[in-house]
């Protein structure tokens, strides 16, 4: 199975920022991403849980983005502009990807 080097960027961000982040990703020419629900968590700003919540203010979600290594920097700049003042975590790790022609 031929694999290709890629970067996996995982962004945990407040739910109200979702649209801003996805637009920033698109503006940075990111070709694809997936959004995963997050059910709760804990951090310096305390504990939270999505259970029973009506509003989105208290919630967070995780955006996963597999990207070619050479495009990482452009992407991170776009992301950073959005998360800069906000709580949340941005991580990057190495991975290999099947069918890199699709990226």
């Amino acid at each position, binding site marked *: 199975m031929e694999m290709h080097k890629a970067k996996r960027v995982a962004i945990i961000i407040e739910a109200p920022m979702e649209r801003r982040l996805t637009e920033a990703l698109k503006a940075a020419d990111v070709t694809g991403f997936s959004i995963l629900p997050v059910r709760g968590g804990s951090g310096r700003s305390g504990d939270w849980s999505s259970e*029973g919540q*009506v509003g989105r203010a208290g919630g967070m979600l995780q955006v996963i983005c597999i990207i070619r290594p050479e495009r990482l920097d452009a992407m991170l700049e776009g992301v950073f502009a959005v998360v800069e003042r906000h709580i949340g975590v941005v991580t990057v790790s190495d991975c290999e990807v099947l069918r890199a022609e699709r990226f």
Partner: protein
Amino acid sequence: MRGFIRDGEPLKERRVLHSSMDCTKRSVTLSEILDLAASNLVSPLILSFVLGAFAALVRSDLTFPEAAAKAMSIYLLFAIGFKGGVSVAGHGVDGALGISLVAGLLLSALLPFVAFGLLKLLTRLDRLNAAAVAGHYGSISIVTFVAGTSILETQGIASEGFMVAVAAAMEAPAILSALWLISAGGKGRMDGHLWREILLNGSIVLLVGAFAIGMITGEEGLAEISSFIVSPFKGVLCLFLLDMGLVAGRSIRDSRGALTAGVFVFGVVMPFVGAAIGVMAGLLIELSLGGVFLLMVLSASASYIAVPAAMRVAVPEADAGIYLTLSLGVTFPLNLAIGLPVYLAVAKALVGG
């Protein structure tokens, strides 16, 4: 709300306005208020909230799925909006709607300034946090409003159906005031995005949309779906308040640090200040007893959905622990348990219902 009343007696004639607001017609005795409060306290609605709060405080694992909470909220918004629209359809739209909307917009825009002043007086919150909190108190809590209509219904008191539209109108302006209060102390916080998000947020669109549907389809439309949006309404509200109790109890439980004495006192005092301003506005624009009461309720209540979301986006530096706990953990239960009967008693005294 009009649509609730089975026998359909017509709205009391617009009362002559007593600008001096003397209470000669009927004085509110404390015992009356206490009676009302006591009977309010043992309603299934309040007790459901208490049960939820209790469960959260003792760390029971009782929780509502997020989807169920959201579904109930959609149901309540749709039902309350629809019934308001039907009621307006039945009575026709006169100038009162326009005036009331303007009153609502103004109240929402101005209450944050009052709240801000009070916060500066009572607390040591910095400008940013004080403004963020203030924004919540200009806006409204639709569940508090719904609980208010439910009390009116129990007592057989009519109210203007368009108060639902006023509720919708009061959601957003407070956010602008809060942002103005902040940027007066620094950089601008508003972008085009945020504008759209605030004005088109789900609860405004659903409330106004259902109101419009109710207005268009009228009693006939209501008849088709009343066994869905009228009969089970109060029961759904019970479960929803149970969930609100869980969430409020959790927020109180988890953020002991965030709530200083001064902040807590603000959360207790501000609703009554808001209600006082609301009652004046209601009398001024000559609403019926029920209408005056609901305007008090709207003014007294604090947002816990639309404004927090906007604040997270526009003022991320503000501490969500403060404004969420205050709005949901202090002011909401206070209004539910004590505020509503007090406001109604005051409205009765001043309007003479």
